[in-house]
């Protein structure tokens, strides 16, 4: 029965043009952005950064992909909020009165979709990176296996962010609000928090910090570190970052599954 629900949710996802949008965005941010950055070369960024012939340069270009995590998170919020927006949630809860199971099915379906998004992003980013570097004749400063590992981690992180989005949407119900919260927090909020003394030492354990730990992207941490008089903000080890991120998703998902049980559907 639960499998039937997941199948239904995957069908629902495939029934609109949303998945096309997701695919295009993944290719655009993956191949497009990474390709453009690789073609430009970090040494031509403002301020200039180490080039692609260095390990730092490669990590920097790939780590930029972390900034696009708001996209799968935003797509995730649509899972439940679209149902509230068009009131199909009535019909859905009539088919499945155990409302938590609806949210579980969406979490599973969107994990699959998030992994597909992440895989598309990672594969096209790899192509963009090698293509861009090859076009400029720059040998990469990281081995192919390390690059593949980083890309895989970024791909997985996208799925985790999708799940976070699903959970936030299930809790807030309102589409615009959920989008604003998720995009606002990931895109601007977390960075703004870094300006507040004291709070910025928390960066490593916030979702963005955990993501950076997972993708090995030190840029933000280093920037924050310069403002902290006690010096040094250290990102968590990648595995710990991954676990923390999964923990955020698990907590958010659990609350999301339990939350709709009691409330009346209007």
């Amino acid at each position, binding site marked *: *029965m639960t499998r039937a629900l997941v199948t239904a949710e995957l069908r629902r996802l495939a*029934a609109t043009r949303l998945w096309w949008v997701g695919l295009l965005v993944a290719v655009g941010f993956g191949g497009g952005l990474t390709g453009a950055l690789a073609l430009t070369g970090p040494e031509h960024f403002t301020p200039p950064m180490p080039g692609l012939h260095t390990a730092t340069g490669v990590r920097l270009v790939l780590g930029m992909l972390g900034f696009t995590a708001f996209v799968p998170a935003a797509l995730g919020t649509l899972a439940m909020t679209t149902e509230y927006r068009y009131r199909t949630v009535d019909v859905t809860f009539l088919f499945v009165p155990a409302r938590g199971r609806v949210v579980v099915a969406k979490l599973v379906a969107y994990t699959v979709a998030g992994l597909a998004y992440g895989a598309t992003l990672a594969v096209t980013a790899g192509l963009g990176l090698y293509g861009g570097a090859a076009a400029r004749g720059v040998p990469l400063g990281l081995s192919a296996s390390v690059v593949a590992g980083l890309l895989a981690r970024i791909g997985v992180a996208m799925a985790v962010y999708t799940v976070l989005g699903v959970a936030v949407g299930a809790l807030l119900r309102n589409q615009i609000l959920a989008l604003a919260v998720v995009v606002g927090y990931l895109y601007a909020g977390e960075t703004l928090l870094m300006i507040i003394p004291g709070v910025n030492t928390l960066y490593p354990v916030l979702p963005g910090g955990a993501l950076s730990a997972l993708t090995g992207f030190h840029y933000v941490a280093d920037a924050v570190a310069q403002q902290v008089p006690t010096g040094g903000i250290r990102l968590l080890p990648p595995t710990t970052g991954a676990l923390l991120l999964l923990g955020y998703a698990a907590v958010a998902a659990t609350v999301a599954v339990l939350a709709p049980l009691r409330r009346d559907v209007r």
Partner: protein
Amino acid sequence: MTGTTIEATALTKRYGHVTAVRDLTFSVRPGAVTGFLGPNGAGKTTTLRMILGLVTPTAGTVTIGGRPYRALDRPTSVVGAAFTPGAFHPGHTARRHLGVYAAMGGYPARRVGDLLDLLELTGAADRRIGTYSTGMRQRLALATALLGDPSVLLLDEPGNGLDPAGAAWLRALLRRLADEGRTVLVSSHVLGEVRQIADDVLVLHRGRLVAAGPWAELAGPLAVVVGTPDAPALARLLTAHALTVTPDGPHHLRVRGADAARIADLAAADGVRVHELRTEPADLERLFLDLTAEEAA
């Protein structure tokens, strides 16, 4: 098809200070179309949502075949429900919409094609629902409700926005479903629509049940309209004889509880002038207005 009865006992729903539904006790029988009537805001939708477990009653219980909706094993195979306006993602096609819910309910994919045929939507099945007319949406909502071939059908204002041909088509469908032994509960605030189809009626006013039963019984005794220049005197006289009298303009009374001959005799015996005497055809609209007016007074 074995019959499934809906039983509500002392059903009450309060929203803060607003009591949407108050102490409602009724049952809806299988094999008949039951009209669920009441003016805007009477509590019809709230009651239907409580039957379906979408809204939790403040007090009381409601069961379908003896069990609350949320305790049914495969609820959509027992109860089908449609609200108006129907709830659809405008970007889905009808076929995909039904496909999603067929998968969700575990119903075979061929149900989708069958229902598209039954509801005459096959021609538009692959168009985005956003482009559908009101009547098409109503039919798609019905198709969704019928996916599980349920023995109970709950429809909230299904006639809204239908043209006369569409309304006649809907009546024929509901009649057929009831004749197959299903329990059909149809809410409406339009009496004309219901009187052509309902076997039984439940009349709701301000959250209370003001009438219930076979509509033929409710609508008769027939009303007699009496035209008289001495309306107040005749009203006093007839009321004294235990008849129900409602004024209908300055020179007319609507009388229930006696036929035209008895009313004419009573008036003649007392020397009250009568200028007009006419028996009204059974008029639920009138009854409905009377019932809800009394309650408001």
